[in-house]
């Protein structure tokens, strides 16, 4: 069984190696003549002021939580789709009930404006 996953491991290993090699190559081969101007943070030509570690708005959190909740819905869809043929109509109804309940959630979120960037 594990043998079938070898290509995936190869891709992951390749990705890691490629990333490290590129960064290191750049470090070794590239010329390095730093000035104050070059080392400053790039802000589209503006003078950087204050710390970059600003506190994020709770709006991002809202989006992340909703993303997770609907992501878990997708996780349930995956095994259902694989076993779809064997589950037949009963399986279809089952999933419809599940989706409808979560659609109510989506409707609620939408009406409350939680999807808007206020």
């Amino acid at each position, binding site marked *: 069984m594990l043998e079938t996953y070898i290509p995936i491991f190869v891709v992951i290993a390749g990705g890691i190696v490629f990333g490290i090699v590129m960064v290191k190559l750049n470090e070794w081969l590239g010329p390095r003549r730093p000035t104050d101007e070059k080392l400053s943070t790039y802000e589209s030509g503006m003078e950087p002021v204050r710390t970059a570690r600003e506190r994020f708005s709770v709006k991002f959190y809202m989006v992340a939580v909703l993303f997770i909740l609907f992501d878990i819905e997708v996780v349930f869809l995956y095994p259902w789709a694989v076993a779809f043929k*064997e*589950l*037949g109509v*009963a399986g279809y109804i*089952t999933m419809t009930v599940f989706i409808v*309940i979560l659609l*109510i*959630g989506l*409707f*609620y979120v*939408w*009406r*409350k404006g939680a999807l808007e960037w206020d």
Partner: protein
Amino acid sequence: MIVIRLEDLLYSAPLLVLTSSGLLALIAEAAGRDKPVISYYTSLIGVITSLILTFLNLGAGVPVFNNMILQGGYAAYCNLIFLSSALLSIVLSRSYLERMQYHRGEFYVLIVFATAGMMLMAAALDLTIVFLGIELMSICLYVLAGFMRKKELANEAALKYFLLGAFATGFLLYGIALIYGTSGTTNLVVISRSFAQLSGNSLFLIGCGMLIVAFSFKIAAVPFHMWAPDVYEGAPTTVTAFMSTGAKAAAFATFVAVFVRVFDIPGTALSSVLALIAAASMIVGNVTAIAQNNVKRMLAYSSIAHTGYMLSGIAAGNAEGEQGILFYLVAYTFMNIGAFGIVSWVEQQEDRKLKFDDYAGFSARQPAVAVLMSVFMFSLAGIPPFAGFFGKYYVFLAAVKADMTWLAIIGVMTSLVSVYYYLRLVVLMYFCEGESDVAAKVPLAAISAVTLAAVLVILLGIYPSLLVDMTKGFFKI
């Protein structure tokens, strides 16, 4: 392939109706803006319908949905507790939330979903349902605790409850994993068949221990009680009423379902662990309650103490203990929700009028309400002829019969201590001068809810056999 039978749906009608009413209330809240009254009535109708259906379903318990849950019998009895707790909380909440300016439809939706979670907990025949029920209830309660989102104490309450609750869930899952690993199944009935063989397995026992930790957290037993006073104080008062009755009853219902009906604990190490937790809860709860000045905090510690009384019934593990807990849960639900209801009438915005002194001379202005409050206090103290007395009587009797006389003695001694702080409130109301009064005119619905609770407390105190006879057949699977 037929996976759901029609009778599954019929037997679980109370649960399905309740959940659907929650869904409808949510749709109503989303569709029509600023009309929380629609959600209020939808959820109220749902709870009442479910209550009626539960009454029709009180016969023998039937396993449904592929042996996932048990409907009728034990589950129906527990459902009555949860649904009455939800009903009284919903009725009391409306005027309270309007006064506090937090009246929103989602409140009722969350109460209904939490109640559905409680019903699952009591009905569970499978550990996955135990987990899902506890989570459904807890997630709703975390949000309800922080419902007044601009209040600092409410935020603290929600955060504390959530963090510690998540930790307890971790214990629960770890315990379930160990039990599944050693027994090869999550089905409680199958596990119970091989319990004798499994009880020698140390991994299985560790799994059971983890379940005890998780359940002890949910029922607020010492030493897992730290969250209770802060959460009970910070949450909206009617939510505290709901948490301390419905949620506690639900946690006890699963505790009993798993450890009494399924596992055969008397004589095992688990039984003495439970006895120790019970004794610690009674002592810590009652002694700390004396020092409180805030009525909500006092009731929180009193709730810990009552957890201890009820746990001694589980520790005893005999028929008296089981019936005693089931009776106690009903009595406790009505007396506690009544007491919190009256606290919510006196309370004013920004947590004012929650101190003991704010009840001085209460009887002069509100003689009827003072009588109701005294009934609840006497019953909580366990003074006959109120329901609280018989609850204690049954569980202490059970402890004596199970050769745990020391536990019963601790129970009686700490009950005597508790009389001090309960009657302190009564003395303040009747024998002290003061300006105390309810914050605003209390609507008729709320008055009738609390009166109903008081009537039941007295009725069950006079005829405890009304309930006790019902619970006799619940402990055979």
